[in-house]
């Protein structure tokens, strides 16, 4: 039997030691009326080679592309070979949460390095050890914001990733918070400042913007921070394309109180949306309001540098019904991928980010010749919106040439029918762009 090593002799010996006749006797507490009451209608177990065939067949049902211009919160980037090889050492991936620091220094140190890298990238003081994904990190950040300000309206810009807004909505309804949406400016693609003014009422705790936003457009974050702070409100910046941190002014330098987002771009495949990891960083002032695991540096009993899970009084296992979050895990293995990725890229992360920008700008300009005008005027990072002749036809035609054309925005924003969100990363070659252009 796969994965259960007991021989008949083992079982018999063990039952004898326990002092029962059959394994079923150990279940005497289970009422008869529910014990083995219904048959389990399951197929027979399969050998490893049969499982491999069945699962590979499923994998092959997904369309594969020569080039994919899909982004929108999950990005195709090159992953240096060492990232997967090292992160998937089984001492790491088969370990539990590092509760026993003496034999978990490897995982604890990797998280400490992660925290260091994320605070440096965001220019903020404090971060946790990572969270489920960017969307839930945003929802947890919204709870923090309401808790800090003791106010119950959360504003979110409509050009924030629709998946994130949906999750925010779910969490806010459960907690009894009100989520209000701030429209975007149709010309620039940025947050509509005039509409924001109107919505900044007394009961507002703060605002979540995304920069680069869902349309790839870089927001004027500094201006928005100033606006919110002038009214004693907080601002959270969502970042779904973590690579943008390589080139854009970091949230902390723009006065942002909370930076949240998705780290998948740092060394993880898109994998239908997960696992990636959420990050959440803030200023020193709100360190003890952070949900989730945090690793701290300390010493062992011989004065040697050591690491341990810390500030645990914030967490559910101690605070129980007073805890503001129930989260008790992180995406440690994904955070480890990101640490190895960021160590590999090092200062070249900036160059890579710039390359993404330059290549996407190049492609956007090339598409003008195809009579696909750019929709939004404000600068973008590595994604942009264009108006096509007919999205459905374009997507279909390019798919036939094994090119994923982009995200059909009409599905998500009715006012953007026949608009396409196109992402260009370093994985897109000049040939890929020419193929695209030649088939529209």
């Amino acid at each position, binding site marked *: 039997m796969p994965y259960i090593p007991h021989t008949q002799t083992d079982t018999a010996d063990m039952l004898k030691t326990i002092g029962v006749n059959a394994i079923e006797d150990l279940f005497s507490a289970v009422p008869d009326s529910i014990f083995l009451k219904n048959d389990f209608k399951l197929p027979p177990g399969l050998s490893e080679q049969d499982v491999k065939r069945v699962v590979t067949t499923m994998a092959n049902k997904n369309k594969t592309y020569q080039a994919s211009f899909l982004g929108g919160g999950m990005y195709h980037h090159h992953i240096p070979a060492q990232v997967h090889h090292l992160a998937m050492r089984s001492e790491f991936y088969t370990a539990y949460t590092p509760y026993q620091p003496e034999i978990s220094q490897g995982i604890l140190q990797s998280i400490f390095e992660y925290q260091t890298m994320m605070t440096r990238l965001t220019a903020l003081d404090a971060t946790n050890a990572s969270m489920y994904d960017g969307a839930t990190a945003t929802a947890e950040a919204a709870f923090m914001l309401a808790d800090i300000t003791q106010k119950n309206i959360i504003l979110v810009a409509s050009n924030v990733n629709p998946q994130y807004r949906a999750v925010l909505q779910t969490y806010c309804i459960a907690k009894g918070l009100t989520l209000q949406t701030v429209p975007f400016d149709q010309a620039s693609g940025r947050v509509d400042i005039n509409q924001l003014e109107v919505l900044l009422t007394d009961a507002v705790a703060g605002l979540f913007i995304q920069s680069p936003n869902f349309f790839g457009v*870089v927001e004027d974050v500094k201006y928005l921070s100033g606006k919110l702070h002038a009214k004693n409100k907080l601002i959270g910046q969502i970042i779904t394309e973590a690579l943008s941190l390589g080139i854009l002014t970091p949230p902390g330098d723009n006065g942002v109180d909370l930076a949240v987002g998705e780290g998948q771009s740092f060394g993880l495949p898109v994998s239908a949306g997960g696992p990636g990891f959420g990050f959440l960083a803030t200023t020193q002032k709100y360190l003890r309001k952070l949900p989730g695991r945090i690793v701290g540096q300390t010493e062992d009993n011989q004065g040697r540098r050591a690491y341990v899970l810390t500030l645990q009084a914030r967490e559910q296992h101690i605070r129980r019904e007073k805890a503001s979050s129930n989260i008790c895990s992180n995406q440690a293995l994904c955070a480890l991928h990101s640490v190895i990725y960021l160590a590999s890229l090092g200062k070249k992360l900036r160059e890579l980010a710039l390359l993404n920008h330059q290549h996407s700008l190049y492609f956007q300009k090339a598409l003008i010749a195809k009579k696909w005008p750019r929709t939004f005027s404000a600068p973008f990072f590595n994604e942009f919106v264009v108006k096509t002749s007919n999205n459905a036809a374009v997507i279909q035609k390019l798919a036939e040439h094994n090119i994923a054309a982009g995200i059909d925005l009409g599905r998500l924003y009715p006012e953007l029918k026949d608009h396409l969100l196109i992402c260009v990363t370093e994985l897109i070659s000049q040939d890929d762009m020419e193929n695209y252009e030649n088939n529209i």
Partner: protein
Amino acid sequence: MIWKTMKTIFEKTVPGRSAVQLPSLIANDIEIENSQQRGELNLPEVSELDIVRHYTALSKRAFGVDDGFYPLGSCTMKYNPKINEDMSGLSGFSNAHPWDQTKNIQGVLEVIYRTQEYLKEVTGFTGVTLQPTAGAHGELTAVMMMQAYYRSHGDAKRNVILIPDSAHGTNPATANMCGFKTVTVPSDKDGYVDLAKLDEALNDSVVGLMLTIPNTVGLFDKNILDIAKKLHDNGSLLYMDGANLNAILGLVKPADMGVDLMHINLHKTFSTPHGGGGPGGGFVGCVSALTPYLPADQVMKNGADYQLTADTANSIGRVRSFYSNFGVIVRALTYMLRLGKTGTERVGRYAVLNANYVKARLHEHFDVPFQAHCMHEVVFNDTKQQAYHVTTMDIAKRLLDFGYHPPTIYFPLIVPGALMIEPTETESKETLDEFCDVMINIAKEAQENPSLLQSAPQLTPVGRVDSVKAARQPIIKYGA
């Protein structure tokens, strides 16, 4: 082995060194103004080999199931089959983009659908979602569904969640996230829910009871059917925390117990690795009365096609982005396909056999607070060792010197000095015997040479770590 103090990757930086080469530029125009660009990027400068050596060294300072027996109670540290990893890494899965049209990611949807169908069969529920990312996330999803259920039934005044005193801390924290009050229901002397106290707590403000089955002291609550009836007679719901499902997998269907909804951890019962704290996988199953409230989107099968549901009018909405931790679901399905019917029906049996075997071998050496046959885990305490000033912490740390991961300690809270051992079904009799021999030896050491335990561990990369210092002067990043 002499363990050297590890540098951080930042201390290995040599300016100008690099581990990557970027593709060549095809264009030079830049649209982002200088004022929107960051200053210096302070990341390590190291070579590829520097990185390989550094993280390999860190891996040697970690301990996984592959390194040795990991009897961490409540965590179900079973073997993580290698084939799971291979399947999850197939490029057809890892390159599938979540914004692609559903017709282009039929394989993704099929994996989710087949996993759902398997879980429906083993739990007996009609409604399922794989969107939650972790156990606590599944709990939150379920409590949100209970809230939505009562709101849509015009019974929004219900605002109390009942929680046994043996529960994981996530239960009350989850209730709080949904704005519910919590009332604690005490356990009786045998470790079961105190039925009289449950009666006292029930009234028309009660949303439901969050019950871990088997419970955290490793017992199957023999009154489960009574408990479910009391809840239902009160118009309340019974939620099952499925963290301990492994004990009854293939033996009891939770829906048959009168459970209305539950969560499952794919990374416990269904063999996906814990990854040092994640990524995990959650699942929520429910009876038909609650299916309208499941998170959107639902994966359905229509003829030969897999689709997402359109009807989400009563849904609580999304609880995370896209298709969840999809890579984890592939691993779980791979395991399910390997087990099949016969394998599934053995999991709970052998998990329980192993735990009772450990209990039988150790009960003379360590105090057992509850006498009934245990389920998948057995709880001891340090009562017998207190005479020698040896605590549960000391026993746990001494185990490290023998190459074992310690059991869960000081949980559940209702057992002072708890030592909770969960062997799982994937461990052999020889492994359990060796472990029990070591535990018996430690019990002997506690009598004869307690300082050996009090000063343990000696052989690990670092000694006992000062967590008080860490919390008083938090240093949570390297350098300035």
